[in-house]
């Protein structure tokens, strides 16, 4: 890969990644935010590719784009509609921005300060095999610990996903109150807008 092609790829991918990341913060709609996140993830996957890490790139797409983002979308769809607004985060984001800025500066400082031993020779051709072998041969213990941890997480998730009756009761009570007071609801306002006004999230999750 010549320098020009490399630079072209790097800068466009970097722009894609960072642009997507900023749009996550800016967009008010959580679903939009997830879609920008996906764009950012794809940019990162592309960056991996420019570093000849094709296995990592593909795994990035497989896991983050294909799985994690879908998981996030599911989580959003399962959230009550009122809590799906991204706008409050912007208002209370001052201190958070400060923290993020500090982290970013320190990371940048470390990145610039470190003497990166650039790989000049040809890229590894069989990374998947190497990664697999090192996982199974050299790092078998951490690998197994990770597996056990994930299994535990899976079981825990199922246990947590069981319905919490108290929450439901509170929610039901508030809805009932709303319904009781609904005698005076102006039917003109109720026809149609509930969906139209709330934009595309009709309720439901299968």
């Amino acid at each position: 890969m010549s320098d020009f092609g490399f630079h072209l790829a790097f800068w466009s991918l970097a722009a894609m990644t960072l642009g997507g990341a900023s749009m996550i913060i800016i967009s008010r709609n959580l679903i939009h935010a997830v879609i920008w996140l996906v764009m950012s993830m794809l940019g990162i996957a592309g960056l991996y590719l420019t570093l000849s890490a094709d296995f990592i790139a593909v795994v990035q797409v497989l896991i983050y784009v294909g799985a994690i983002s879908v998981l996030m979308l599911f989580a959003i769809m399962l959230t009550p509609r009122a809590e799906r607004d991204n706008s409050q985060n912007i208002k209370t984001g001052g201190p958070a921005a400060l923290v993020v800025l500090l982290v970013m500066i320190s990371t940048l400082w470390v990145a610039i300060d470190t003497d990166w031993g650039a790989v000049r020779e040809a890229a590894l051709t069989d990374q998947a095999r190497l990664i697999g072998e090192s996982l199974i041969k050299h790092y078998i213990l951490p690998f197994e610990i990770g597996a056990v941890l994930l299994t535990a997480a899976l079981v825990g998730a199922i246990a947590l996903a069981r319905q919490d009756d108290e929450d439901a009761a509170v929610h039901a009570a508030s809805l009932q109150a709303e319904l009781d007071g609904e005698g005076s609801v102006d039917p003109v306002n109720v026809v149609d807008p509930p969906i139209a006004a709330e934009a595309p999230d009709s309720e439901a999750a299968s």
Partner: protein
Amino acid sequence: MTTADDTQLAMQGTIEALTTGDGSEPVVVNLGPQHPSTHGVFRLKVTLDGEIVQDAEMRIGYLHRSMEKLAEERTYTQNIPFTDRIDYLAAMSNNLAYCLAAEELLGIEVPPRAQAIRVMFAELQRVASHAMANGTFINDCGAWHTPLFYMFRDRERVLDMFEMTCGARLTTNYMRIGGVAFDLPDELLPTLESFLADMPDRIADYEALLMENEILHARARGVGVISPEMAINSSLSGPVLRATGVPWDLRKANPYCGYENYEFDVPVGEQGDCFDRFLVRMAEVKESLKILRQVVDTLPDGPWLADVPLHARPEPGEAYARVESPRGELGFYLVSDGGPAPYRFHCRPPSLINLTALKEMSVGGTLADAIVTLGSIDIVVGEIDR
């Protein structure tokens, strides 16, 4: 789209779901009036929790033409074409039921040849109607139109026979008070013979294709179940009732047009689920073919229309005549005040009354089950709304 009572309904559903410990919000989904599986302008409003149907409410009337009122201003003969439009997939049966009621009012004896022809066309209509019902039912189960097209072949042949007899395919207007409008054309009997010769093979094809189809079993077995007690209490009739195991067939119980002279059997199901309805219809087609065979073999000669004045004025009185239409008990209740037109013209629509139990059958199942159940009831919206 959402209306005020939709919203209220949804909220009520939410509250119910939350208090019963299942925390998801219900959705109201309209199946119809324009929807691929409602077979007409029929609207089923289902409240869904995820995919589970919590409530099913039907909204009908999109095809309401007020036929019962219109019929009060037409003479008895002029009303016959209306009956075609009531159940346009079984026009012959409707013609027949109405003519039987009018004949009862007028006290007319129908010649034997006309009776046999009536039986012939009523049974042909049953074959055609069941072909349509079973085909669309499999379509509602998600098949990609193939069984439907297979069954349309048979229906097509029946409709061809209608066409050569009375010139119309769908809205036949063939029966008359006192008989039938035309005698059988010469080419009909050979056509019918070849039809009867081909059908057993066809039915064997369908059985091979559908009856042992595991996916069809999975979709239709144990779905839309109704008990025989509930079926009787809900006034269900036709294959829906017989699928529950109740052997009630008006052709046997109250023979008309000389059905008592023909040998046939009444198939009944066991579970009362959608698959049994499908099987009962399949078996009924076979029985109809049996009847047709006998009709062809014993077709009497003679006049095909009794001498009935076109301007018939029945004595004041009333009549309730019913036939076993492909969809169930189809009755016509006529009241005469001695005038030229019926004073009251009422049709007992099997499609509408069979829908009574739709909610019972579909609540608790999934959305897909509700569609299959609706398909298995075999509705004709023209008959529901009239």
